[in-house]
């Protein structure tokens, strides 16, 4: 079976901003996106955990699979939009089977 190289972009970002990030990805033409939970973390700005009541300092992971060109576009636009926020943008290589789906 043929596989097709794609990019996986993982954006770990404060929960209140997740919808904004998804919006940017969809605007760049992503055909789908998934949101994964994160339990807690530590970083330059201190610790956080999903226990804080209002969700203001929670983080979630937005994940999108897309082609390399669109991936670069998403990466740049998301990065620009998140300048003021706690966020981590990761890119990596994956292979998919259904090329036309992404």
């Amino acid at each position, binding site marked *: 079976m043929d596989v097709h190289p794609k990019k996986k972009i993982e954006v770990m970002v*404060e929960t*209140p*901003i997740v*919808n*904004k990030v998804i919006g940017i990805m969809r605007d760049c033409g992503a055909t789908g996106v998934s949101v994964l939970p994160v339990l807690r973390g530590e970083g330059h*700005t*201190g*610790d956080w*955990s*999903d*226990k*804080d*009541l*209002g*969700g*203001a*300092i929670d983080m979630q992971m937005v994940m999108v699979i897309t082609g390399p060109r669109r991936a670069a576009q998403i990466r740049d636009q998301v990065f620009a939009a998140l300048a*003021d*926020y706690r966020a981590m943008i990761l890119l990596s290589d994956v292979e998919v089977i259904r090329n036309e789906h992404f």
Partner: protein
Amino acid sequence: MEGFLDIIAGNLLNPVILAFVLGIGAGLARAELSIPSAISKAMSIYLMFAIGLKGGIAVANSPFSMSLILALVAGAVLSFLVPFIANAFLQFTTRVDGTNRAAIAAHYGSISIVTFVTATEMLRMSGLTSEGFMVAVAALMETPAIMTGIWLANRGHGGAQSNSGLSKELVREVFLNASVVVLVGAFVIGLISTPEASQKVQPFFTDIFQGVLCIFLLDMGLIAAARLRGVKILSPAVIAFGLYMPVVGAVLGGVAGWLIGLSAGGTVLLATLSASASYIAVPAAMRLAIPKANPAISLTLSLAITFPFNVIIGIPVYLAVVRWLYGV
């Protein structure tokens, strides 16, 4: 004076307050205890629904009074103005920058519904009644402070500090956050339901209320203690602000309650609302409105300093003082 201290002690020897103390202690000792966050969120919705419903039923059963309008106006004014005072205190006593000052100020103008609930329980324990509409005042006070906070952040920065590209989400976070929706929604439900129908839900929303509050405060203690471990990001002057600002707020709220002729119980509640600082609705709104502000600063201050202060020391004192002044 002895009676005064006795009253305060009596207020504390209460499973609800002691559970909070247990939570703080267990948290500070890093005990292997935690309540799943799904449960915390559910209990918080339960408490807000119960208190909103109760307020609505109370208002439905009492003749319409001018005090309702006056109390709403007083609450809105307090919520709008307290942030200016908070901002001034921070400016003259701490080195916190303007953006973070604006965010903190918004927290202190707004309210903590759990602090409010704890105060209503302490009132009930001491046999005082209060106006049923105070829960509507609480709901109203959530929001105006957020606007003052945004205005403070933008002033003199040409709007650069606040984020205008997010207006739709922000408006939702400000006017349709969980606290406002549940409090107002349940209040209206209590107001318009038939008495027989309301009666049927009492065992859930009234009888077991204090027990749920007990577990919720255990959890709040654990959460506050976890935040307290990050308290090193706060300077002593900022921590001091977290301790005197609620007293300032309580005085303003108490005077306002007295001016508009609230009952002793109502005055305690308005003082408590004004003294309390938000740690649910405002932090989320601030992430959208003033992203440059560091949420860890305002959240630690509000949740780990002011909230325990109000629950353990503040409310019993506000209550004792008002009782003494009103002679009840």
